[in-house]
């Protein structure tokens, strides 16, 4: 075994790594509070976030934390391999019969062979693996139970390794997409996820590889699991389906309803076009209007007026500010009168390839810890020799609890009489 391997396997390295991680986690929690620009940390996978963040130098603590966790992981892997390498051969071997002698001696009125036979039968009935050996020194009964318990810490370690590997996979792969679903018969293609969706009443239909499947709309705490993808409910909202415009001239007043992309002829050669509808307008640099979010907080509709194939007027109509939503052209006075809303559903489509591994790791960890705490390894060694006067003399070594049970069962005494 090389010195480097011993270093990687050492418990001392694990303890120092654990203490270093504790300090790094403390620093990370303070950084999360006092450092700005970390609000979206945890949205996309960590690696994707690091690739896109503007604060790469400010998240030095994430690199340090990852390095510390990486070294900790290597130490756990090496310790687990080394420990299993040393423990498993011992587990597979039969119980040892060469225990050191003990001072705990008891007497039985029965003969040595009878005591040995009964002890063997009893220990087997208690689930002990038992070996009986006759030698010049007397009859030896060696029994043990729960040898596999010795690997319970390694089960917990394997769980922790799987959990950390799951976190690593989740941080480096997968995606999270937010989508708005409308009540419509049209399929909504989501190329990143390789599927199409449509919302039909209280159901959501998913089409992937020409096969479609219908599920109930996901609810909070009840996502849809579909071919490695998870579809989550994130909220409901209303989305603008169409707008109602009031068109006034000197002689008449009329109301028209337009959907995005539709047009209406005001008079021969002059037409009104309903363009893009954006959910949450903001005015950027150069007075450009774009959307700040996907939520319908502050919708705006783009209206253009085409006069004989020439763009005559172009204006944004703001739903929340009808006074500013007015367009005048020649005899026409056009105002936004109303909007028609349609219910929509917000969903997240998530692929998280590390989640399953992390879950199995977590279960192994809890299982290993439970087994380690509640289980145990018991072994007992009994040397039975002929007593000086009559009966037999029993010398015990091993689990106190098992020795006490045997003593009570055989009514052994520390007195030869």
């Amino acid at each position, binding site marked *: 075994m090389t010195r480097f391997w011993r270093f990687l396997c050492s*418990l*001392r390295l*694990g*303890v120092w790594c*654990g*203490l270093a*991680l*504790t300090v790094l*986690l*403390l620093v*990370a*929690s303070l950084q*999360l*509070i006092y450092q700005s620009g*970390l609000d979206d*940390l*945890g949205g996309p996978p960590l690696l994707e976030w690091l690739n896109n963040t503007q604060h790469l130098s400010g998240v030095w603590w994430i690199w340090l934390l990852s390095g510390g966790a990486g070294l900790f992981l290597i130490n756990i892997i090496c310790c687990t391999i080394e420990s299993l390498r040393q423990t498993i051969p011992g587990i597979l071997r039969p119980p040892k019969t060469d225990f050191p002698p003990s001072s705990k001696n008891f007497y039985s009125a029965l003969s040595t062979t009878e005591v040995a036979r009964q002890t063997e039968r009893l220990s087997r009935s208690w689930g002990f693996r038992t070996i009986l050996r006759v030698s010049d020194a007397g009859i030896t009964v060696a029994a043990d139970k729960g040898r596999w318990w010795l690997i319970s810490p390694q089960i917990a370690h394997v769980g922790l390794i799987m959990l950390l590997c799951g*976190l690593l996979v*989740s941080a480096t792969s997968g995606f*999270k997409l937010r989508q708005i679903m409308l009540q419509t018969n049209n399929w909504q293609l989501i190329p990143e996820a390789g599927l199409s969706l449509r919302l039909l009443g209280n159901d959501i239909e998913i089409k992937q590889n020409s096969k479609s499947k219908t599920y109930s709309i996901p609810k*909070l*705490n*009840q*996502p849809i699991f579909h071919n490695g993808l*998870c579809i*989550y409910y994130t909220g409901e909202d209303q989305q603008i389906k169409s707008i109602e415009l009031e068109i006034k001239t000197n002689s008449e007043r009329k109301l028209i309803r337009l959907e995005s992309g539709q047009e209406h002829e005001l008079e021969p050669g002059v037409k009104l076009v309903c363009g893009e509808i954006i959910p949450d307008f903001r005015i950027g640099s150069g007075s450009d209007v774009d959307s700040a979010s996907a939520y319908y907080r502050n919708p705006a509709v783009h209206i253009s007026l085409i006069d004989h194939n020439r763009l005559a007027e172009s204006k944004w109509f703001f739903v929340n500010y009808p006074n500013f939503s007015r367009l005048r052209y020649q005899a026409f006075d056009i105002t936004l009168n109303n909007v028609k809303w349609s219910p929509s559903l917000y969903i*997240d489509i*998530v692929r*998280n390839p590390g*989640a399953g591994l*992390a*879950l199995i790791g*977590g*279960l192994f*960890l*809890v299982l290993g*810890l*439970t087994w*380690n*705490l509640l289980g145990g390894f018991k072994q007992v060694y009994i040397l039975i020799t002929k007593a000086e006067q009559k009966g037999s003399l029993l010398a015990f070594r091993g689990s106190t609890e098992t020795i006490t049970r045997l003593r009570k069962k055989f009514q052994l005494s520390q007195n030869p009489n």
Partner: protein
Amino acid sequence: MAAFFILVAATVPKGIRPLPEGLDTIWFEIHVASAFIAYALFALAASECICNPSSMFGFRLTAGGILVFSASMLAGGIWAYLAWADYWIWTPKELWSVLIWVYYATVLHAAKLPGWRKLAPKMIILGFLLVMFTYLGVGLLMQSSHPL
């Protein structure tokens, strides 16, 4: 301490309100209940280490605390994954929960090292202070996904 918290509880409004939808799941109940059991075990371990530093019982209580705390974190992770598509969120509460888990695991391992055995009971007592800060301090002083 119990009397103090009973008095505090007496001042809290007692009207029964339905749970917010996000909390209406068995994973939330397991997560919270097991976290409090783990905190109680860590408190008992610290008390044992104060009263009887040479006893092994404090270590067994700490091991029990880590087991229950692991189950709590696992339930919390499952709940978060089912509700918000993430089993790990970068918030101070999550970081402090991992911090106390790593800390106690380190203490239990350190107790097997020569030279550290005598230090371990003191580390268990310090661990309980970290637990108390995770329980109360993080929720009150830091913005987090957990109110407490």
